[in-house]
């Protein structure tokens, strides 16, 4: 095996892992606080990619499109939380079913609006070059995605450890009732968290579109990988999502090259092993799983 190829693949895996990390963070925080697995999260990712595509065509500037996409997806997130999930407050199973129904609406809606042929967003011009180190060259855009992922992890760490919002969310994950008793408007917190998660899905969808392309069925692919990440890392913890996403991104990318038929099976085996040894996931708080 040529080392330079391996290094490039590792970087590709890392970039993919970072996209998955941003996805899975939304999923895992929503679960930690609302107790709902948002099954529509993959669909939000995909719609985010398509929305970015439209904005790129409209404004031709990738960065404006990226910002607008985050805003649009965050608004969609607020609408979903306010008008659907909110009505089923305290009934988690119904809420999961609602998000499940949303998959069909969102993914078929995307097919309706944007058609079913695969599309892609071109890599933004500013990043259309390769970074060469020794005899290895990486596409700059992927390095950029990795950088965004790392910055995002730092921001999350800062938010969680140092700010009031972080404290409220940590408290909410631990004990929802107590949070309400302390006089915090947790309905607002729920909406905020869902909005945050949807915005993140939009961000990662838009960032991912130049790498992964946009195709029918990508919502399912992404959702499954995110679920695996969340299970491996532990529900409700973004640190777990970070480690899990890097693992899954690497295994998926390298597995596709070396064992194309069983790359999914390897990821799944990893998940089963983690669950058997530590049912709450690598970083999960002890749950009765």
């Amino acid at each position, binding site marked *: 095996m040529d080392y330079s190829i391996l290094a490039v693949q590792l970087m590709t895996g890392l970039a993919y892992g970072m996209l998955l990390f941003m996805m899975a963070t939304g999923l895992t925080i929503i679960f930690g606080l609302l107790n709902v697995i948002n099954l529509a999260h993959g669909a939000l990712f995909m719609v985010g990619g398509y929305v970015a595509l439209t904005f790129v065509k409209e404004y031709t500037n990738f960065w404006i499109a990226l910002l607008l996409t985050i805003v649009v997806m965050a608004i969609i997130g607020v609408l979903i939380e306010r008008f659907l999930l909110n009505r089923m407050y305290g009934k988690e199973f119904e809420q999961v079913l609602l998000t499940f129904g949303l998959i069909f609406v969102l993914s078929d809606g995307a097919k309706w609006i944007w058609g079913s042929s695969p599309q892609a967003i071109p890599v933004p011009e500013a990043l259309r070059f390769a970074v060469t180190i020794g005899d290895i060259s990486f596409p700059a855009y992927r390095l950029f995605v990795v950088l965004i992922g790392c910055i995002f992890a730092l921001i999350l760490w800062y938010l969680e450890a140092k700010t009031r919002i972080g404290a409220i969310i940590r408290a909410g994950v631990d004990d929802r009732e107590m949070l309400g008793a302390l006089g915090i408007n947790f309905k607002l917190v729920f909406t905020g968290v869902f909005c945050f998660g949807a915005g993140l899905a939009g961000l990662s969808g838009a960032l991912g579109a130049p790498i992964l392309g946009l195709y029918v069925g990508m919502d399912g692919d992404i959702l499954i990988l995110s679920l*695996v990440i969340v299970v491996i890392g532990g529900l409700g913890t973004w640190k777990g999502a970070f480690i899990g996403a890097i693992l899954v991104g690497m295994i998926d990318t390298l597995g596709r090259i070396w064992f194309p038929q069983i790359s999914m099976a390897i990821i799944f085996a990893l998940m089963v092993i983690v669950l058997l040894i530590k049912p709450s996931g690598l970083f999960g708080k002890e749950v009765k799983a």
Partner: protein
Amino acid sequence: MNKQLPLAVIVVLILFALPLVLSNYGMRLTTEIYVMSIFVLSLGFIIGFAGLVSLGHAAFFGLSAYTVALLSKHVSTNTYFLILAAVLVAALMAFITGYLFVKTSGAYFLMITMAFSQVLYAIFHQTRSLGGADGLSVNASLDLGFGAIRGTYPMYYFMLICFLICYFLLHRYIHSPAGKATIGVKENEDRMKALGYKTRNYKLIAYTISGAMAGFAGALYAYFNHFVSPESLAWHKSGEALIMAIIGGASFLYGPPIGAAIFVVLQNYISTYTERWPIIMGVLFIALVLTRRGGVADVLNLLWRKLTGADRKESATETTPTVQSGVSKEGSGE
């Protein structure tokens, strides 16, 4: 229960007489409904009576369909052998995965079953010798020893009888001591543990039975459709089955078949007018969940009790409000 026996007999008679009024197309559709009903019944059984909500049940369905396709190509075309092998493969797979998965509950169970079925999908999708993305055709015909069963009428009656047998077996199981213990585990696992029941075993048995039955449905589907594609394993298929079970109401055994019938008829009817069936289905489904009335079976049951005025005499199984109440605590293991 005896009060409902005449009703059950009437329904069965109607099902047997249906070919008198149905068109050829209607018969094929109804035959498909029977096959799907067996599949959805197996899923509804673990949701409504064991509290296990799976989003990967198509794994067993598709695996059996593939078993029939592959074995008929390479080994033998004997119907008994093929169906038995398919059911055994599904049961074995359900037992092994169930042994690992049943430990978990609620959200974890849902995610892990979904991921598992997706793994099978990926393997079948990417392996050329297993048909790959194109799928496999099934070159075997149903033959129970007295001539091949083909054509609309024989198929209709064969699938109907298969469906009735499955329904009857599940009905017996639910009313057996083991079945009642399973319901107890769903209602209150800690209490059943305190009473000395090995709760995990009951869940595992239910899951294995359900997997075997889903496998049976998959084998029948292979014969019905003469073709197996990797999509029959994918989570979309599982999701459809879940929707059917919820539409029908999973807390009653007769809910899932009703759900399957509504789903398949609507799907065929609406698909002739528009390609946007998934959106319509999604919206309908969301609306149904938002009304919080449970499935069709819950509504029917309410009507039946009002009509007969027998509110109090219902058995414990029948008064379980909705499937949702049993699993609403999922994931909240604090």
